[in-house]
């Protein structure tokens, strides 16, 4: 399947949406086990509210999931796709 056929918005959504779902689950599991106020207390983020920590945590998880899904997409390219990028003279 040629990658040209897939609209760009689809590529972005297909990376962003699954990582959003996983980030939600990861946030719940992580912050149920660890209280951000406790583990942030000795750091310079001690003033951050719990809600703020949860929110930032969620977006960090999302970012990690996004990076992973994006790499999967990137490495899915076949040898032919890669060769097409650098056509031999």
């Amino acid at each position: 399947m040629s990658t040209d056929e897939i609209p760009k918005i689809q590529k972005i959504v297909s990376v962003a949406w699954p990582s959003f779902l996983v980030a939600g689950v990861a946030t719940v599991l992580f912050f149920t086990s660890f209280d951000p106020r406790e583990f942030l207390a000795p750091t310079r983020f001690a003033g951050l509210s719990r809600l703020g920590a949860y929110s930032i945590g969620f977006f960090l998880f999302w970012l990690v999931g996004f990076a992973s899904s994006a790499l999967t997409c990137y490495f899915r390219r076949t040898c032919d796709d890669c060769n097409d990028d650098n056509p031999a003279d």
Partner: protein
Amino acid sequence: MNDSNSSLYAKRQKIYPRQVHGLYAFWRTTGVVVLLGLYYILPWVKWNGEQAVLFDLPARKFHLFGLTLWPQDFIYLALLLILAALTLFFFTALAGRLWCGYACPQTVWTEIFMWIERKIEGDRSKQIKLDKQHWNRKKILLKGSKHVIWIVFSLYTGLTFVGYFTPIAELTYSLLHWTLGPWETFWIFFYGFATYGNAGWMREQVCIYMCPYARFQSAMFDKNTLIISYDKKRGEPRGSRRKSADPKALGLGDCVDCTLCQQVCPTGIDIRDGLQYQCIACAACVDVCDEVMEKLDYPKGLIRYTTENRLQGKETKILRPRVILYGVLLASLTGILLYSLATRIPIQFNVIRDRAQLYRTADNGMIENLYTLKIANMDLKDHLYRIKLSGPDGLALRHRRDRIKVPAGELIELPVTLQIRPEQIARPRVTISITVTDSTDSKLSKTVETSFFAPVRRHAN
């Protein structure tokens, strides 16, 4: 999302579902009113003077009608989620995608958004005409007011959503006084934007491309599952005819090919092509086809709720291994959850040793170890607890302060010093246990083991 409709996976044709009336439309509307009513009213319901349903994230406590759950009670929440999933499987095996058609938030909010759209832009044909029309004052006014109402409604939805996680009374107060915290504001807009996008723009694409349940629901299906199906044997060959005409004489089936079943479909499919992944089983086509059949004096049910077995003239079995298995799992998990909730001991007790030093020797020669006792009263009333020690003889709390009052739903960190005379401790490390017990109810008790350190004794020879 733009006018070229190149959104997401397939080139999207905008769908204009026609409004339906009928039995199933009535039930769907009832579902919308009840579920949305619950959603918007529930955060305002009080229970013993507190918000009845509050997943208080800033305080790390969940309040459910008087029951307070702590992060340590995560198992109950996990069980509850597993129960919800099993219930979904059970009903899917029995009656197909009931969830999608009547209860899913995507369906429910889309219904409300379409209702607003119809009130402003008019019915299906008017909407199509308006979209084709060139931009003029009237079109700007209609489209603009629709989006303004959608956005206001979405933001209110977002506010309500955040109200499940921080006390809604305080939230509304700070909104009115313009002192809303940054994160609350952010999540109100985030959820509001998601509502506006999903129910206003994405609609059926959420079900088709984004919903995990839609992808795996077919795994719960079998030939005895209730589905919405067109009766091909009765309907074909389809064709238009006059009301007075005898279809048999014309060689036609009962389907008059009015295409209304397609026009009402929120996912834009033709149910006559058979069971499709896109079908959310909303039964809009059943309602509209029944209306047509009634007008023609044909029997209702050309499109109807049925099972694959019945369509093939076989019996439908309700009790079958799949259903029984889900039922048994559901019943036993419910039992486990209720039992464990009923026997839950509403006290959490942890002991943390002082990290700075293993032991110290006091001026009077006593060996001392420092601990922090963390006592959480997870009950709804205050408790007076008694601290008891078990270990070598002579081990005691300094100052004999062995009573501590913990108010309902509070966590108290109590620094304590345990001491012992050096001659009463034989080894440099002994295991001791500390117990907190309610002063009136001895069953309300938790014991934690920890270590007590002492200097290595050098025996004089």
